[in-house]
């Protein structure tokens, strides 16, 4: 469970986050929409512990991120906007490395199954990541998140630059993860994808979470209209 209580972050005169209140429960997918600079990435960084809040708190499963950074990292998985990975290592080796870092010790077969689950074709598993396409790298990033068996998943613009097919495959995986009890926070520009996969959608403007809507209560076109009105 992801929870932000009056989460605030200021940089001098500028307010990046203004008293954000947000709770994402297990099995829930929450899409965060907003312009560049609205505060989406800042929110995610607070949950990741990459930024110290100026006020309020961010917590994962009731554990405050700011006070227990290393511990909370055990519960979360993160997929950054551009997944680069180590070009000289293969897909499996990258996965093995990151999952070992997370404390897991998987055999080659298990690792392969994670990659396949994420949609990466078998032939690519042992090839160097330096030769992967963006979509393929994204899938390794997803596999890393899956392998971590995390309670919370944080995504920053996950579908940017993906073709429609890969984007669709990605939505499938997200839904599966949510079904298994993971809380998902996804920052995105992709209004269509947000409506399609999320349970709830939030729109941020200038550090404030302006509106929160249930996805089933709104159509994609209406969502777009609301978005343009809000920001």
């Amino acid at each position, binding site marked *: 469970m992801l929870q932000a209580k009056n989460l605030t972050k200021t940089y001098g005169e500028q307010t990046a986050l203004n008293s954000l209140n947000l709770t994402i429960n297990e099995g829930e997918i929450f899409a965060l929409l907003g312009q560049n600079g609205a505060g989406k990435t800042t929110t995610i960084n607070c949950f990741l512990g990459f930024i110290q809040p100026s006020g309020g708190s961010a917590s994962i499963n009731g554990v405050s991120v700011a006070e227990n950074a290393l511990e909370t*990292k055990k519960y979360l998985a993160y997929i950054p906007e551009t*997944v680069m990975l180590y070009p000289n290592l293969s897909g499996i080796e990258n996965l093995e490395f990151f999952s*070992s870092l997370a404390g897991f010790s998987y055999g080659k077969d298990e690792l392969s199954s994670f990659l396949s689950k994420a949609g990466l074709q078998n032939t690519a598993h042992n090839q160097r990541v330096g030769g992967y396409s963006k979509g393929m790298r994204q899938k390794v990033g997803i596999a890393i998140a899956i392998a971590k068996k995390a309670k919370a998943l944080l995504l920053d613009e996950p579908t940017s630059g993906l073709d429609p097919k890969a984007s669709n495959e990605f939505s499938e995986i997200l839904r599966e993860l949510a079904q298994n009890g993971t809380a998902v926070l996804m920052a995105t520009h992709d209004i269509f994808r947000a409506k399609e996969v999320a349970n709830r959608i939030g729109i941020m403007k200038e550090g404030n979470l302006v509106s929160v809507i249930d996805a089933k209560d709104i159509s994609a076109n209406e969502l777009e209209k609301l978005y343009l009105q809000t920001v």
Partner: protein
Amino acid sequence: MKNIRLLFKYEAIGLVRSRLFQVAIGLLMLVGLYAIYYGKSEIDQQRAVLKEIRADEEKKMESLRSKISTDTLPNVIGNRTFRLVENPPSDWASLSIGQRDIFPYQLYVRYYSLSRQIMTAEIANPEKLLTGNFDLAFVLIYIFPLFIIALSYNLISGEREGGTLSLLLSNPISESQITYIKIAFRWLLSFGIALFLIVLAVIICSININSTLLWWLLATALYFAFWMGIVLIINNLKRNSSFNAFSLLGAWIVIVIVVPTLINLYLASAYAAPPRNDLTQAIRHEFEEIWAKYDDKDHRYQTAQKLAAKYPAYKSDTSYNWEDKYMLAETDFYDERLAPLFAKYQNLNLQKESVGQKLSVLSAAALTQQVFNALAQTDTQNHYSFLDEVGRFHAEMKVFFYTKIFQNKTFKLTDFEQIPKYEFKKKPISNEANNGILLLLVSVIVVWGIGLMMRRFMADF
């Protein structure tokens, strides 16, 4: 910790597969091997020269022995006795040739005036002296830091620019941990290669293994630790890889190249080597005076008195062989008059060297070079110890022959065996090595102190 093993493993895999690393380590090995070969050949040449001269000494002494008959005068033998006083290179000299190419390392000593023998120089190609020696010390001091920089300039910035840093940090590991583990890995790798080269040199140059090896390795380890500290400091600035690359190289330029030359510039002006005109004029002038007063009877009488006062054991028997005895007495006083001048210049140089060593604390490279030279016994002080040995042995020879000459003895075959022969005795390693290593340790602590302090006060990632 398991994170350490994990990161080490993947750092190693990534490095081994990267082109830059393959090229860098290949070059490093090549350069290291050449340096070992070069150092060995230079020092072997010096040993060969000493061997040649020893053989020549044997030959000369053998032919001299054959000249001894029933009534041979000791001065006849003395005048033809050449004894080699040598300063052979130590085991480790192949690794740090130091000043051995600038200073002479042997002298044929006769019992005659020391002042007229001691100003010797080894002939050398000045261009070769100018460019210096490509020995293992050069590789360790100049090249290894470049290797470290090539490996470390994108320590964290590479991860950041490559996008993997955030992935890493989304795991239970902190940036500090990652930084220190990576630094430790690079230090171990560099030191490992250096260790390999040093051990290889020990084997190839047949160096006796004793505590000097440990000191050498310690100095190398500290020097590399110093550079890792610099890496830490630059890394803490959180700038991009290009900035890191040229900051680190800038640090290299300053520490390895600019600071030592600036120290030398300061020493050259503040402790300018005075012209030795007083010495060279005195050597010539005093000697001419001796010949000028050769026929002065009063002067001769006074000389005899002076000699008797100084050396009661030498009877100033002016009735027998007085011509030769007179000249020997004169040259003894001549040496006595000139000794302070020689000492003056020797002390000036030693003082300059000592000031230089103190100032070297400003450059870890200069410190390390000094330590290597001290351990290899190829530093300036070693040369002056050699000159002291020359003086000491010359005194021995002088006493031997002077006693026989002044006591009117004939030279017998049994006396021949008694002619002093110089036996080189190895000296213990000078304090400069310890001092240098201590100062290196201080540099490491300072640099790491700054690095660690910076991290304490650093902002968020």
